[in-house]
């Protein structure tokens, strides 16, 4: 039984479709429609950003995937399981969710208990639980925090604990719902490098609801929601070059992209600089004056 689940959760091969939406609609009652007729597929291993203005239905959309919310119409298939037909257990096991405020996600009195809580629910052996606890707390750099109460941790540490608890359950799909929006810049950079590491491993399909330009830039694909429909399905570079789409999605390009754009408008052609040093070297090469 356990193996069958694992097969469904993690057995998807690279490129195989793991999430499929077909004509999906959702609303909080008929007078408050949120999403209308959404269709797309996501292959295993892809890193997808979900973007759009506040209140456009981003969080509702991802909550449909693991049946936290019931779809009003249409069909959702996750790892080959049709949502209306499959039982919730294996679906939730294949999708891990990490939310905006890690405080809303803690259940244990210590970090260790918090990570073990999810594993107990999976009915794993003691050995396996200890094993995973060790692997994932080390991978996220929180092994030294296991005895601490969540209240003693900084925002960035809490978010890492939340991620470790989710990853320990070994889901194939991990959804981050504005997981960095409450973090300070240092912790945001930290989260981004964790994400890059997860993506490089190839075993996770990552979905990220975000407004953060750097996070969007690091992903492979952008699904833009607007007014309850899918407004665009593009690459990050296409998004950041499309002023009109950026405005519609309430987004801004990263500073370097905006600067390059503003320079271009004034007749100065430069590639988007990777750093301020790069810009200076492009605009004012030193060798000329020496």
């Amino acid at each position, binding site marked *: 039984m356990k193996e069958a689940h694992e097969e469904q959760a993690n057995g998807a091969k690279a490129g195989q479709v793991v999430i499929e939406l077909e004509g999906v609609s959702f609303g909080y009652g008929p007078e408050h429609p949120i999403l209308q007729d959404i269709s797309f597929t996501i292959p295993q291993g892809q890193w997808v950003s979900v973007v759009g203005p506040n209140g456009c239905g981003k969080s509702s959309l991802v909550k449909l995937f693991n049946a936290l919310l019931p779809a009003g119409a249409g069909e959702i298939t996750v790892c080959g399981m049709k949502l209306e037909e499959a039982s919730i257990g294996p679906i939730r096991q294949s999708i891990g969710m990490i939310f905006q405020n890690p405080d809303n996600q803690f259940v244990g009195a210590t970090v260790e208990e918090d990570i073990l809580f999810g594993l107990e629910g999976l009915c794993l052996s003691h050995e396996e639980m200890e094993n995973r606890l060790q692997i994932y707390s080390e991978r996220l750099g929180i092994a030294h925090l296991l005895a601490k109460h969540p209240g003693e941790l900084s925002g960035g540490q809490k978010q890492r604990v939340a991620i470790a608890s989710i990853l320990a359950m070994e889901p194939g799909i991990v959804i981050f719902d504005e997981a960095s929006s409450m973090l300070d810049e240092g912790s945001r950079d930290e989260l981004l490098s964790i994400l890059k590491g997860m993506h490089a491993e190839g075993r996770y399909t990552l979905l990220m609801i975000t407004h953060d330009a750097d996070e969007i830039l690091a992903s492979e694909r952008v699904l833009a929601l607007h007014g309850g429909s899918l407004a665009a399905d593009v690459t990050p570079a296409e998004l950041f070059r499309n002023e009109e789409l950026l405005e519609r999605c309430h987004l801004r390009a990263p*500073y370097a992209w905006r600067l390059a754009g503003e320079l271009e408008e004034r007749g*100065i052609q430069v590639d988007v600089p990777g750093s*301020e*040093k790069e810009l200076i070297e492009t*605009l004012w090469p030193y060798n000329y*004056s020496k």
Partner: protein
Amino acid sequence: MAIQLQQVSYTYADRSLWKQTALHDIDLSIPQGSIVGIAGATGSGKSTLLQLFNGILKPSAGTVSVLDVTLRAGEKSPRLLPLRRRVGLVFQFPEQQMFEETVEKDLCFGPLNFGMSPEDAKERARKAMLDMGLDLDLLERNPFKLSGGQMRKAAIASVLAMDPDIIVLDEPTATLDPISRTELISLLERLCREQGRTVVIVTHRMDELLPVADNWVVLKEGRTAFQGNASDLAKDPAILERCGLTVPQSLRYWRAVADRLGLEDEVPRLTAESLAELIASLRTEGKGLDGAGGKRDDHE
């Protein structure tokens, strides 16, 4: 001065074994009608500082003066109700601030509590909603059924509805989309510049506030590590790193251009638009072209 702190310290659980001093010896002046940004790493005392501004916390040492009210450590505090109306506080988590069953009731709660008639309170609520760019249809909704970003805007609206002289916001833009962030910052700028209100914002997104803030306070381990304006900050951005913060992109790019061209006395250009404008104008003047440093040009 709208807010003045003199040698203020604050200690949590002062009379217990677990006492912990969150603020040490803070001297701070915030002029009326100015916009002040407060930055600092996690645990540097930012949120504790904000709570001193309307008497939620009282100083363990020193003097806090806000508008015409003075709180001295160890003395009985004066009546704080008028101060609480005039100093609006928006907390970090809006869901902890809303409590009524409709958005309208939530927005009217403050004004009614401070003695306003129901009609006037409703009018205030509508105006605050429009100021925040929220649809009036949302007034009838349950605040907990709003999206994260809408809820945050509604929480800010509920503070604006009290018509405060000083508006204090703790990470107000954290969960807003970038356009809503820009809109909120420009709304706060208007409230300050046109109506003379004082605006204090704690932020870890310094980038978006740098072009509008008159002054900055940077905290490190409960002490003020920096006080000054954006020009002062642009001269030595490394101070931010010493305080455990990341130097914002706009400041890094400005610093790089200014260093390369020797623009020490220039007003820092902290938006992509203004920096591009400056680079373009230097080029048409022939300065900074093809590697010629600005300093050398000045002597020519």
